[in-house]
């Protein structure tokens, strides 16, 4: 299936089918797996009933567990995985940098600072207040605006000036966050640490509705920009001579990726590795075209994060593992394996 040549239509179709199957498996696992055992048949029946096809055979208790506990967690996992993966892929394209991830321009540091401020000064270290997502979102957005202000020079932004500005702003905000933490109690530090690790455990329908509009809009913009990112792969100057308004495309893609990432990070905390690993796995499988990578990142990223979350909440149940740890444990070997296969075939 893997080869050094650009992918054939058949290979792309097979990978697409694999991604769709992974998504179906993730949805069934997300709704079906948990302390209360519910059979796959009943889960499929409940999903069909939710879509207006047939009747659900779930008991009232099972229906509450599925629709009020597991479903919001599943949907939040799907939108988070899709957003982080698409944002990572889009950043890699717009900066022509394979190491780019959704946190490149300071989103993580800004959100971390916002959340720390909320926990330390609003919750006084005793609780994680309901303001945390809002302040994390504000922190992430302000961080990207500062990065753009420092390195962007309006529409004259280049990839390298933005990346360097992102490094500087991230360092500054992280140091401020460390300062706030250092001024607070052990309880606060523990709460901030838990938030930073990222988790879907507090998912609710209200958090889903809070992030969904941003994610839908931002994912649509990023996927639509796939063709433009392909043109940008020849570099800014050549892309301009081909008719691409490079700076405007960069501004739109960076704005969409950052806003969507800020929205999901504010709801679930910092989940690392998804945004870098998913686009890279797909690039190895379907080639370098962002017209293929980005739509598949939506499907595979969503499936990947939900499957990782299912493992995170069940493998050491009742204790939950940090989601970011599971995404790295799953993603890194998968990536290494694909890379090795590809290298063998290339040589």
């Amino acid at each position, binding site marked *: 299936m893997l080869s050094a040549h*650009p992918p054939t239509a058949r290979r792309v179709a097979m990978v697409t089918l694999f991604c769709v199957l992974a998504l179906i498996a993730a949805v069934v696992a997300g709704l079906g797996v948990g302390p209360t055992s519910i059979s796959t048949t009943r889960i499929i029946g409940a999903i069909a009933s939710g879509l207006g096809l047939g009747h659900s055979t779930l008991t009232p208790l099972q229906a509450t567990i599925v629709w009020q506990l597991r479903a919001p967690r599943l949907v939040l996992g799907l939108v988070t995985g899709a957003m982080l993966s698409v944002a990572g892929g889009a950043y890699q394209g717009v900066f022509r940098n394979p190491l780019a991830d959704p946190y490149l321009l300071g989103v993580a540091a800004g959100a971390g600072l916002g959340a720390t401020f909320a926990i330390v000064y609003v919750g006084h270290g005793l609780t994680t207040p309901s303001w945390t997502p809002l302040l994390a979102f504000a922190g992430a957005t302000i961080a990207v605006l500062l990065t753009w202000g420092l390195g962007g020079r309006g529409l004259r932004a280049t990839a390298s000036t933005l990346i360097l500005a992102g490094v500087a702003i991230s360092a500054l905000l992280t140091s401020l966050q460390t300062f706030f933490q250092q001024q607070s109690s052990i309880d606060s530090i523990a709460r901030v640490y838990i938030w930073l690790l990222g988790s879907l455990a507090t998912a609710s329908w209200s958090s889903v509705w809070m992030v969904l509009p941003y994610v839908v809009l931002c994912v649509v913009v990023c996927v639509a920009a796939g063709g433009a990112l392909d043109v940008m792969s020849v570099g800014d100057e*050549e892309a301009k*001579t*081909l*008719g691409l308004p*490079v700076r405007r495309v960069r501004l739109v893609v960076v704005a969409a990726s950052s806003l969507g990432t800020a929205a999901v990070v504010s709801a679930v905390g910092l989940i690392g590795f998804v945004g870098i690993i998913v686009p890279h796995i797909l690039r190895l499988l379907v080639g*370098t*075209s962002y017209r293929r990578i980005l739509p598949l990142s939506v499907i595979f990223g969503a499936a990947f994060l939900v499957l990782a979350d299912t493992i995170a909440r069940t493998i050491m149940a009742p204790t939950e593992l940090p989601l970011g740890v599971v995404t790295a444990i799953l993603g890194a070997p998968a990536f290494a394996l694909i890379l090795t296969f590809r290298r063998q075939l290339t040589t």
Partner: protein
Amino acid sequence: MNAVEINELTVRADARDLVSDVTLHVESGTWLTVIGPNGAGKTSLVESVVGLRRIARGAISISGQPLETLNERERAKLVALVPQRPSVPNGMNVRDYVALGRTAYHGLLRAPSAGDRAIVDSVLERLSLHEFCERDVATLSGGERQRMVLARALAQSTMVIVLDEPTTGLDLHHQMDLLELLRREVTECGLTIVATLHDLTLAGQFADRLVLLDAGKVVLDGPAHDIIRREELSRCYQMDLRVIDIDGADVIVPVRGVSQ
């Protein structure tokens, strides 16, 4: 009619004039090559023509349209560039690479139309690239790669193509092959070419008109046959250059040890 009009052009960088007060008019369906020693301002001049350099003074028009009034998309429909060191992205196949030349026509949100694909196929056929069209661009030889970059420029369907040292890194056979191909496009399709070349023999044999640039200024401008015989050429290159006529073709030879 003039395909390219450059009037009193000055291009500046770091308070230094790279191109200074240059005026050139290039007639449609002709080939103009800019020659000159390293640092003469050749690349700055041709990059200005495709809108990659900020113009400090003067103006450029392509097919009668002032460059500064055009956006990237409008410009890409009038003039195409074959850069000196094109960026070739790994993993892209030759057909997709050539199809990048249609970006200005199908827009950012739409895929190439059947018409765009037909133009790409026709260019691939014309440049004998159809047998490579599914290959990864990274696996092509230097000659094949340069031909592919030219195909991308031709796919832009512009009447003007700007080439910055298009023969860099090619062996003699591939240099001649590429320039013959360009000559055919000028003669048969009425293409206008503005190029830079270091090889004076090739410049003299293929261009209709040569412009000698030195320190950003035009030193000589005229028919290729005349320019290569002028003394100023030797002075600019600071060496003795001789012209030998071989079966009607001018060959420019530097003479060792005679420095001006």
